[in-house]
């Protein structure tokens, strides 16, 4: 069984984080909260999401899976204003999710989760770590989008650097240690990433909120941040581009 009450913003936050990568997702429901792990169709990026039961106003659940069409859920959530309370209830008899927004009752058919694979989170060696304000990162990525389709991230002992190079133009964002919330790195680490993917990953975090970046050499980047008033957490992995034969 699953029955919960939650502010619409929390659900919208979950959609913002997952929908850039997948159209359908398998949510794992447990008494502790909701979690999800999915890989995009190109197998380039992974999202791992956890929202604790504390993020909900009311929460009651057994262990179960919900297969959700995110486009559909997103269009339903557009019916709710910011701050609206949304109630969710799983209807076992019809295999539907009953979503109540104010006086509106929306019954949403669920997707069979049998064909949805469980992805494993690779254990990566990512020695460099930087914690950056979301707004700083967003600015650098937006500038890069205009000149190239990929960017380089570098972390060394002194700074975090984002660099993009096009045919004629370049973008460089270098943040020394004192402008970062945290920096720790045993040496210099650098990898290349697709801007399309990377920009989608940092879009859900705004303003002064911290984004944690873990980096290695020609290894995936790991991006971590909190959602739902710190009662939820998101981890993204993005595989690198390696431009050698």
């Amino acid at each position, binding site marked *: 069984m699953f029955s919960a009450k939650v502010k619409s913003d929390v659900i919208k936050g979950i959609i913002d984080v997952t929908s850039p990568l997948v159209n359908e997702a398998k949510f794992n429901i447990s008494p502790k909260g909701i979690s999800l792990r999915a890989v995009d*169709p190109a197998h380039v990026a992974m999202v791992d999401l956890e929202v604790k039961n504390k993020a909900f106003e009311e929460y009651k659940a057994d262990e179960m899976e919900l297969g959700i069409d995110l486009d559909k859920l997103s269009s339903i959530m557009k019916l709710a204003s910011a701050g609206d309370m949304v109630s969710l209830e799983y209807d076992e008899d019809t295999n539907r999710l009953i979503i109540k927004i104010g006086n509106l009752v929306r019954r949403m058919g669920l997707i069979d989760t049998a064909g949805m694979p469980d992805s494993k989170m690779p254990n990566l060696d990512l020695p460099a770590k930087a914690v950056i304000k979301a707004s700083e990162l967003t600015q650098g990525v937006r500038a890069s989008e205009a000149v190239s389709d990929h960017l380089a991230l570098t972390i060394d002992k002194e700074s975090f650097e984002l660099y993009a190079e096009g045919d004629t133009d370049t973008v460089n964002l270098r943040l020394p240690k004192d402008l970062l919330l945290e920096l720790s790195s045993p040496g210099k680490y650098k990898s290349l990433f697709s801007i399309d993917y990377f920009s989608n990953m940092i879009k859900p975090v705004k303003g002064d909120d911290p984004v944690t970046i873990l980096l290695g050499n020609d290894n995936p980047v790991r991006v971590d941040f909190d959602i739902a008033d710190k009662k939820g957490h998101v981890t993204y992995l993005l*595989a690198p581009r390696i431009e050698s034969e």
Partner: protein
Amino acid sequence: MIKNIATNVSGQKKILSKNMGRASTLCILCRGTKLLCGKERCPVLVRFYSKSRIEPLINKLRLHGSSPPSVFIGRIGYPYVAIGPLIPPYLGDTSIIDTPELWLNKSIDEIVDFRSQLVRGKHRVKITDVETTDRIIEYTRELALAEKPVYTEAIFEKKPYGKIVFYDEVQPHGPSAPIKKIYIGNPKYDQKIEKAFYDTDLKAKDAILELYRKGVRISKIQRAFSVGAFGTKKHRRFVPTRWSITAVDSTIGEKLMEKTREHPWINEYRVYNLNQFDNRWIILMIPGEWQYELIEAWYPNTTWNPYGTSISIFNSYEFYNGRTTYAEIGGCYYAARLAVNETLNKEKRQAGVVVMREAHPGYIMPIGVWNVRESIRKALQHPYKKFDTIKDTLTYVSKKMDIPLQRWIKNSAILKKHLYQKKIEDFQKKIEENYDDQTS
């Protein structure tokens, strides 16, 4: 790509005055439609007009013949456009003249020859005037819905102006003249199209898809679409022929793509190839998720690279989720996308597809987007070469094409992605033995 266009457009004056060679890139982006060079008429097309000294077919105000059936909706002056029939100066079974699906075994000269005999009658109407008592509108629509050639007689206001007209996306046609009066025989409608025409609750998109499913030729659907025969009643309107071709290709393609994305991946790399009208085509399929790219290389002295001294290469692409902006290289992008999705759907398979086109100097005239759609359909009917690795695949491609492999890769978003972008599982394999699930 978009940023390239921007710089070209803003810097066009300089490019043109200083160096005619650079202007070649403008022509490919413009193809006679946008007049990026700043001239009043497209010099490329004008060159063809002067070359093609078609004698005035008719030196009189009255013309009769069997329309294939065929109509033409102009785009100049939109939303007030010139509509009307295309009429050849003779009677009989003229259907081949407006059925591009059957033209692949003709030569360019033959195609230009029979298309140049089509006289275009022009009648200016507002695009929303699809339902009036205006005879010319009515007859134009009836022709567009007809199944077989229809006897058509037109009286023009002045003698048809004698030249052949080429477009990038539309098939060429001959001289044109404003219509004064028109008369047509009793046309027999194509039954399937007629049904969609009388259904004024059926959306245009659904009409297109239903007719396509029932096996109606694309050129027929497009012709009826252009006269506003489909759609809910108040939304019906004339659609310029050029736009209607891409609208139909793109609508059907989108629908097929939805299904393509759900099918299992192919298991091997595939290469299909075809030489047609001195265009070399390669269709490369990659085992993986749906994504698509069309790369065109125009040799100097081909249609859209008349002044260039070097080969110009352009591409448009989309990844799995599709694209929302109009493709830089225009209608042919959508025509090719439709054709590759037809094959993938028939096989119930998913793949990433890169279509490469080398337009060699023998391709001297633009003959329309149908050339792209039908060439690729034909190429995909041939058996393909199978490979296990992308390296072997590209080695084979480089034998078939003149342009060096590195240049193709440099100009291809999808090949670059496929070669350089790693996948999550590339890092999973490495660590399988000391696998540790990090989440709680």
